């Protein structure tokens, strides 16, 4: 474990995040700010900063990160991940944090709704009769409304 100067940074939370990512690159962050300055979300909403999230993780601020609205503002565009000079997979890191926040019950409602829809039908939108008729009319092939095998695959996975 590198000496980050913060005792809390060696805590369980950072270990957990690092483990989910399968790497320890996050410790290599030297706060250059490339991630924040390249971020298209930050350009219109200054509340969001990938750098801030990384720093909070390194400081072991578990509850603050998991409960923050900010982690849900990331657009998953991979711009920061592509420019990080230290090779930190920032977008993947935020995905890992979101998974942890979801399990802890802190995700926005829409995230749970999508999860339930896909788990119960295998698709994000079930195609109703109206959709199927429109498809038929346009000579488009049949698309199954629910995918039973995918539902079975996800059964019992939480």
């Amino acid at each position, binding site marked *: 474990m590198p000496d980050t100067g913060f005792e809390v940074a060696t805590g369980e939370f950072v270990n957990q995040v690092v483990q989910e990512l399968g790497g320890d690159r996050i410790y290599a962050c030297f706060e250059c700010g490339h991630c924040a300055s390249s971020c298209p979300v930050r350009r219109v909403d200054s509340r969001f900063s990938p750098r801030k999230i990384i720093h909070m993780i390194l400081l072991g601020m578990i509850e603050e990160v998991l409960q923050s609205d900010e982690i849900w503002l990331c*657009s998953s565009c991979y711009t920061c991940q592509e420019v990080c000079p230290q090779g930190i997979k920032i977008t993947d890191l935020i995905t890992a944090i979101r998974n942890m926040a979801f399990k802890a019950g802190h995700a926005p409602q829409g995230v749970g709704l999508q999860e339930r829809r896909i788990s119960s039908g295998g698709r994000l939108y079930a195609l109703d009769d109206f*959709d199927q008729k429109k498809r038929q009319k346009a000579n488009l*092939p049949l698309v199954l409304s629910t995918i039973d095998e995918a539902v079975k695959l996800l059964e019992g996975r939480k």
Partner: protein
Amino acid sequence: MKYAIFLGCTIPARARNYEMSARAVAERLELELVDIPDFSCCGFPMKSSNLLSARLLAARNLSLAEEQGLTIATLCSSCNSMLAEEAHRLEHDEEALKETNTALSKIGRKYTGTTKVKHFARVLLDDVGLERIEEAVTKDLGGLKVAIHYGCHYLKPTEIYPDGENPDHPESLDQLVRAVGVEPVPYGMERNCCGGAVMAANENTALAMAKQKLDHIKVSGAKAMTLVCPFCSVMYDSNQKSIESTFDVEYRIPVLFLPQILGLAMGIDRKTLGLNMNVVKTKELTEEISA
């Protein structure tokens, strides 16, 4: 040339114009698109809540294509990134492949790690080729000025696209529209994300992101915009009106899916290309082309 066409969830329900135009263009170019009705969601919308489940959905879809020995061609860029990411991971990580197969065995499936995933636009460029596309042109679009939006997952993360292009200077879509007599217009902000994935967390932030690009395109001289992802289309086409009313601006920029533009140059009619389903009206644009 034969591909398993991967529609995902959004296209068959909400972007039939993209699907119709892609199928029509594929037919002209003698590309055979095989439908696998048992494909599920790619997994992408589950990434934020449960990455492991998202990966399993992707792996199952990959195994369905593998069973038929087909490369997957996607229309949605997010489906493309999810499937390509998992294909890449399972191709290079034996342990992960083993674990995945343990989970897949529950539904009697197996995946050996051979499926390739390509975006439809890259199939056109790499496999069909520009020469063939040029030959299919029957209608002179007269150097129609179009603003190209590449979007994010079509190009990134670069590590999952071994044959990919430089995300800072992509060229594939420029090459494709040039081949049919369209002139790509530089407008700045070309690389900006549409903001689609931010809609659920904060609608205003998402719309403000899309607005930035539309502001730039408006003054660029482009007559239309073109793109290759149904989520990006929701932001620039479906939401263009709400951006106009939220920020008190006016654009009226038609937003066409890439195959709709290619199809116009191949003389395919408006109805077959689903051009009456685009939210911002395209009639004036196509009349101008015909004139």
